[in-house]
């Protein structure tokens, strides 16, 4: 109480903030300089054809013993097709057409162009040849036998919808049960069919879908976490990274890379 009585008589004075201001002026530029606005991550890769190392030779011998129990999952990537192989057999190939999204400064270009191997597309307005650095993202749209782009429904979070058998869904009615392609799959009971968008079926999503099916079927295989990605010479690195993402999200974290020989 004594304090309060004293305060009543005193005039309100500003706190001297100069010291604190000095601190701020020094700290903020320092933190801005050291701030990381884009964070880097890494992907672990095993070399499949390891040479000159004793540990590897031992591993190889071991793997030869139980070869018949092994899954030996392989994803083969070429310019227009992805094929999955397991247990010495191959699943039906997944054909796709590459579409590249280009973003360029002149003419505020942001467009999706069909890709033909070995040829850079031209700017739709100026006719200039676009450079690889203007390529922003690569989309792979799955094709059917007649090379028409397949469609599928996607949630508003960009997850593909499948039915109970893992087949992509094209249209839904209220009351249907569908599954969103997350890991594990999320069950959705459709109340409003209008909330899903029909989009071209992405080959990455379909690949993830198929890999998840394989994972579910061969949960007790010896090499249940391993996948080999075999690519052709012309495949762009970006595509391999996206396919590695699909493999990792389908619980195949031990990724090896190998070369597809013609």
């Amino acid at each position: 109480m004594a304090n309060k009585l004293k305060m009543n008589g005193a005039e309100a004075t500003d706190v001297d903030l100069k010291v604190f201001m000095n601190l701020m002026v020094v700290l903020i530029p320092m933190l801005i300089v050291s701030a990381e606005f884009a964070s880097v991550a890494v992907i672990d890769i095993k070399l499949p054809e390891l040479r000159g190392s004793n540990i590897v030779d031992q591993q190889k011998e071991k793997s030869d013993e139980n070869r018949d129990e092994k899954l030996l999952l392989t994803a083969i990537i070429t310019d227009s097709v992805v094929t999955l192989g397991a247990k010495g057999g191959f699943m039906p190939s997944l054909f796709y057409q590459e579409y590249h999204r280009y973003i360029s400064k002149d003419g505020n270009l942001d467009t999706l162009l069909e890709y033909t191997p070995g040829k850079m597309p031209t700017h739709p307005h100026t006719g200039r040849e676009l450079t690889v650095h203007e390529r922003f993202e690569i989309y792979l749209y799955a094709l059917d036998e007649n090379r028409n782009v397949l469609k599928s429904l996607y949630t508003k979070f960009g997850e593909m919808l499948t039915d109970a058998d893992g087949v992509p869904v094209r249209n839904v009615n209220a009351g249907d049960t569908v599954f969103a392609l997350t890991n594990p799959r999320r069950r959705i009971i459709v109340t409003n069919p209008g909330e899903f968008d029909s989009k071209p079926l992405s080959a990455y999503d379909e690949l993830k879908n198929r890999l998840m099916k394989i994972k579910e079927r061969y949960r007790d295989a010896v090499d249940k976490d391993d996948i080999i990605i075999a690519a052709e010479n012309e495949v762009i690195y970006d595509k391999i990274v996206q396919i590695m993402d699909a493999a990792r999200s389908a619980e195949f974290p031990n990724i090896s890379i190998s070369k597809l020989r013609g």
Partner: protein
Amino acid sequence: MGRFRRKKHNASMNITSLMDVLTIMLLFLLKNYSADGSILTNADNLVLPNSESKKKPTEVNLQIAVTQDMILLDNQPVVPTEDARNIPQEEADPIIIKLEERLKVCMAQEHEMVRLGALNAVQGKVIVQVDKNIDFDVLFKIMNTCGKSGYNNMNFAVMERDDG
């Protein structure tokens, strides 16, 4: 000269709002602050691909950067990427000779450090930063060269995707 003399009056500025802004900025920047610095090589034409990987790069002593023009080892140009492209694709065991020489020197250093007790074991670890438009052919030749030189533990650097 009297006009330069300042009139004496008590002008005080209200800096409370400025302080608010600065405090919020300070908190935001402290939240973003990470003690382990960036390992990224800043090259003009080195754009890393986006990925969903959340794995953070660990401490590593060697990094290779592959741009459209040059292959760099620890930020020093080693060999033009064109040279790697020129190795015939049919080659079963393609080696980029200049890169291999440099890698072997690094490997020898690592062995020396183990001998002196500075390292526990030879890690053979390397971070590879590859431009996203590089074709697999070049990538494979680099991987093969690394494997041959004893660098079996490879990490590909990618950008973390910030959207969902």
